[in-house]
Every structure is written in structure tokens, then in C-alpha cells.
């Protein structure tokens, strides 16, 4: 068992991950504002190392954007933050992920309890084949809330937060699948907010939406960040500059070792205040990406 691990470490040394973690402009968060603190996280699918040695701290009441080319592991990192990768049988996480002082991957931690605090909105809107009301009430229900009046209240509040209430208040009993793409995504956001999570993870929430629907969801994100912490994966760099406070740029490294077929692995190249990442990137790869010369 010792030998392959050693080999992996050698590979990691060759990959030369350079990271600059500049503090965001005009705001210096304290230890208490840290929501996530990941140290040297590597994520494997079977023997394939999807992400190598990521260390990142995410702060509360901020919007943190993950950007980078396809296959760089942004989504994989996002999914380790609420243990969604547990659902993939071959996935394995090495390193330390702390969430508000607790080790997320400790044996005693229940993934269910984690996901109740850390919600997720997916790339493709995935409303349940239930009524709009039942879609939003689903989360509170599985958390044990039964009272009709209380549920009504939560459904209305969540739909209002998601800026969907006025469009659907007269058809709460209609199927959630009858909504347009943008409405369905806002329904999924409402569904996530209904359980009052601490963190909302968003995996390219606007990639299937038109600019108007995207704009609405961005407004929504800015509004709810007072109460929630948001981490968003996006392919759209303009979106990152519009909504995020901090940006993490991920990239793909290729290990040129002969005889291995797929040695691509994702690394965190640079993490800092969004303005700094886009206007004064410290790493040449970041600069190449944000100026459009690569990716």
C-alpha cells in the first residue's frame, strides 16, 4: 500500500501548483467569518485524480465564484463541500475540509446533516414531478415540519425570496414541470431556501437560461447573500465579475509522464478578491484565462 502513495506524491511534486491567495480589497475577514476551510484537498474517482491539492477558505455572507476551463474540477470541488460526491461510489476525498470548525469528512459526520445546512442548486433545473407547492414544502416536510399553516408560510416566504411568488401564486397546485426554464430554476432555489440553509452551493445555475432569466437570478443572489453564504460555479466570467466578491480560478494540469493515458488533474491556480483576479492577476495562467487568450 505504501508504494503507490509515494508515487502519487512524486507526481504531485512534479505538477508544481502555484497559488497566490491575495486578501480581498477593502475587507479583511476574521477566522470567525470562515465558513469553509479546505486544506490540501485531492479528489479521486477510482484511480483518476480529478483535483489535486486544493486549499481554499470561503467566507460567510460573500459570494465566491469558481471559474476555469472545462474539466478543471470546479464542480467536483463544489460537490465535496456538501458531500454530494458521496453519491458516486468511486469518489474519494483526501485532505481536510472544515465547515465552521467541524471536519466534514470525519467518520461521525452524517452527510444528511451536512446537506441540511449546505444546500445545492444544480446546473439543470430539476423540479420534482410534484405541484409547485409540494416542491417547496418538500424540504421542510422531510425536516419534520407538518403544520399546514407553517408550511404555507414557508412556501410563500421562500417563493418570495426566489422572486417567483407573483408568477405562481395562483397556480401553486399545478405541476412544477410546467414552468419555463428560468422559473423552474427559481423554483429550485426557493426549494433550497425553504430549509433555511447556511450555505447555498450553485453549480452553473444559469447555464441553461437566457440573459433575462440569468439577470433575475443574479439579482436574487445579491439579495439573499445578506442571509446566506453562496458559492457559485460558473463558465461565464462576466457573471463572476457581476456577482462575486471573491473568485477562485481553477485550471487543468497535464502530467507528461509517459505510459499514463489520462493524467489531467484540476488545480486551484489563484484565489482572491474578484476585482484583483480580473484586473491584476498574479499568475500568468489566470491572466491568460481572464483576458480570453485561453479556455
Amino acid at each position, binding site marked *: 500500500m505504501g508504494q503507490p502513495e509515494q508515487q502519487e506524491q512524486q507526481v504531485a511534486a512534479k505538477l508544481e501548483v502555484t497559488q497566490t491567495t491575495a486578501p480581498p480589497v477593502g475587507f479583511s475577514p476574521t477566522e470567525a467569518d470562515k465558513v469553509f476551510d479546505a486544506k490540501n484537498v485531492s479528489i479521486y474517482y477510482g484511480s483518476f485524480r480529478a483535483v489535486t491539492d486544493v486549499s481554499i477558505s470561503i467566507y460567510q455572507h460573500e459570494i465566491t465564484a469558481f471559474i476555469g476551463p472545462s474539466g478543471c474540477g470546479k464542480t467536483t470541488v463544489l460537490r465535496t463541500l*456538501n458531500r454530494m460526491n458521496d453519491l458516486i461510489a468511486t469518489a474519494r476525498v483526501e485532505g481536510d475540509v472544515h465547515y465552521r470548525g467541524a471536519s466534514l469528512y470525519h467518520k461521525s459526520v452524517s452527510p*444528511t446533516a451536512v446537506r441540511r*445546512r449546505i*444546500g445545492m442548486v*444544480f446546473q439543470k433545473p*430539476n*423540479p*420534482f414531478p410534484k405541484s409547485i407547492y409540494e416542491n417547496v414544502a418538500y*424540504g421542510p416536510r422531510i425536516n419534520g415540519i407538518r403544520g399546514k399553516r407553517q408550511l404555507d408560510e414557508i412556501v410563500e416566504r421562500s417563493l418570495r425570496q426566489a422572486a417567483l411568488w407573483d408568477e405562481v401564486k395562483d397556480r401553486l397546485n399545478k405541476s412544477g414541470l410546467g414552468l419555463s426554464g428560468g422559473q423552474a430554476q427559481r423554483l429550485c432555489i426557493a426549494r433550497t431556501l425553504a*430549509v433555511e440553509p447556511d450555505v447555498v452551493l450553485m453549480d452553473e445555475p444559469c447555464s441553461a437560461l437566457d440573459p433575462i432569466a440569468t439577470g433575475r437570478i443574479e439579482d436574487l443572489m445579491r439579495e439573499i447573500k445578506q442571509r446566506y453564504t453562496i458559492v457559485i460555479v460558473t463558465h461565464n466570467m462576466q457573471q463572476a465579475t457581476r456577482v462575486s466578491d471573491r473568485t477562485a480560478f481553477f485550471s487543468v494540469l497535464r502530467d507528461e509522464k509517459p505510459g499514463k493515458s489520462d493524467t489531467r488533474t484540476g488545480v486551484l491556480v489563484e484565489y482572491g478578491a474578484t476585482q484583483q483576479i480580473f484586473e491584476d492577476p498574479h499568475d500568468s495562467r489566470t491572466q491568460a484565462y481572464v483576458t480570453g487568450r485561453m479556455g
Partner: protein
Amino acid sequence: MAVTAEQAAVDLREPSGWRRAKNQFATAAMWFAFLCMLVPLGFVLVTVIAKGASVISWQFLTNSTVPPNILPANVDGEGAAVVGTLEITGFAAVMAIPLGVLGAVYLNEYGGNRPLARVLSFFSDVMTGVPSIVMGLFIFTIWVLHFGYSGLAGSFALGCLMLPIVIRSSYEMLRLVPNSLREGSYALGATKARVTVTVVLPAAIGGIVSGALLAVARAAGETAPLLFTILTVEATNPNLFHGANTTLSWQIWENAQQPYAGAVARGWGAALTLIAIAFILMIVARLVTARFARYSR
């Protein structure tokens, strides 16, 4: 709108030649196949209705005494067989459908690639191909030899027959439930059991019900597994757990072998009754499916 120069219309018809011919040939072939399929289906239905409808009466359906073969068709009735079919098939369904659906849930949601799941999946496929009479013999040796003929033994045999069909059809339906729905539920903090009960099963229920009722209809028409398990009786036996019993399929099989006009007519009548029961079952299935599927679009 006065147009100065006539514009020559573009030819937007299907290109002539080989492609058009292929299209026409394929269309004709499909219609031919459709009509070929209608012939046996229509022939069976028309024959059964033509020969069986004249015997059907309230008395035929409910009179509990099955008359001796030699008597004409308007004496006594097949009530015993109607009751037998309903209770034996019904109890088989009560045993096999929950078990089969749970088995499919295990295979698709929990089993993954575990050896137990692969073995189960393999043997349920093998069981689908086991001739129904073998199921009857199996129950005969492990049950009837020790406890005697009864409707229950028949239910066991039919249940064994239904189980693999229910497992397979439910499994295919569960597989169609998109993973994104499961993830949506997990992301709200649901446990695996919760996800399965509140999201996966409701999303697949329409197909599961259809599959289960197809299995019931198939089992209701089986005779071979019942030959060794229920024997037959001449009077209604409402007790499923004790004593020999009879079913419509048994009555068809027995009466069809007789030279007497009355017996043959009773056989056709029993056949029509069985088809009617299957028909009613299918309508119920459609209604149930529609009820569950009202949010699926």
C-alpha cells in the same frame, strides 16, 4: 401586391427516386405489420365474444355450482371459478407485487454492483424464463405434498410466476427516474430511504403499476401451475387456505376437452369472463396511472 416578375417556386417536395421509394415502402410495411397484428387479435376477440356471449348471464357468473359436463349451458354456472380466480390471483398479487417492487428498489437503489444484487438480478431473469408448469411442480413438491391442495398453493405458484415479471418491469421503471431528481432530494438533506419513498417511487409509480397489472393479468390466465396445486371443485370454496379450488382458466381447460355442447359453451363463457376481468384490470391500471402521473408534465 403586384409582382413584376413571377418567381419560380422552389420544389420542396420529398426528393423523387430511391429516397421517396424507401419512404413509401417503409410506410406500407408498417401498415402491413399493423394489419397482420390486428388479425389474430381481432380473430380471438371476435370468436370468444361470438361463442361466449350467449352463455353469459348473471346466473352463469354467480351460481356457485359447476354442473357436470353433460348438462346444457343454461344450467347452474361458473361462480365457483370466478371466485377462485379472484381470490387465488388476488392473493398471489398481494404476495408478489410488494415483494417484487421492494426487490427492484433494492436492485436499483441499494444493490449497485454488489454480488448479492448481481446474483438476484441474474436469477430473476432466469425465473422469467422458467415454464409455468415447473412452478406448479415446484409448489407441489414443497407445499402440496405436505399440506394438501388449496387455493393458497395456487397463489404460491402464481406468485412465483409473477415475481420475476414484477421485479423486471419495476426495475426498468426505476432506472428511468433521472438521477437529477435523486440529487435534488439529497441536497435538501433527505436520507436514502426518504429519497426512495418520496421521490423515486412516486416518479416511477405509473410504470410500476402497469407492469404489476400486466403480471396479474398474465397469472390470471395460467392453467398449468394450478394443475398440481388447486385440483378442482364443483362448488365455490371461499376458503383460500383450505381445500381444493377452481379457476376460470381451469374451467376453460377442462371444458374444452369435452364432447358435450353444454360443456364447450361453458368453456367459451369462462374464456370471455376471463378476458373481461383482464380488461377491467387494465382500465383500472390506466386510471391509477393517470392519477399518479398528473404532475409529470
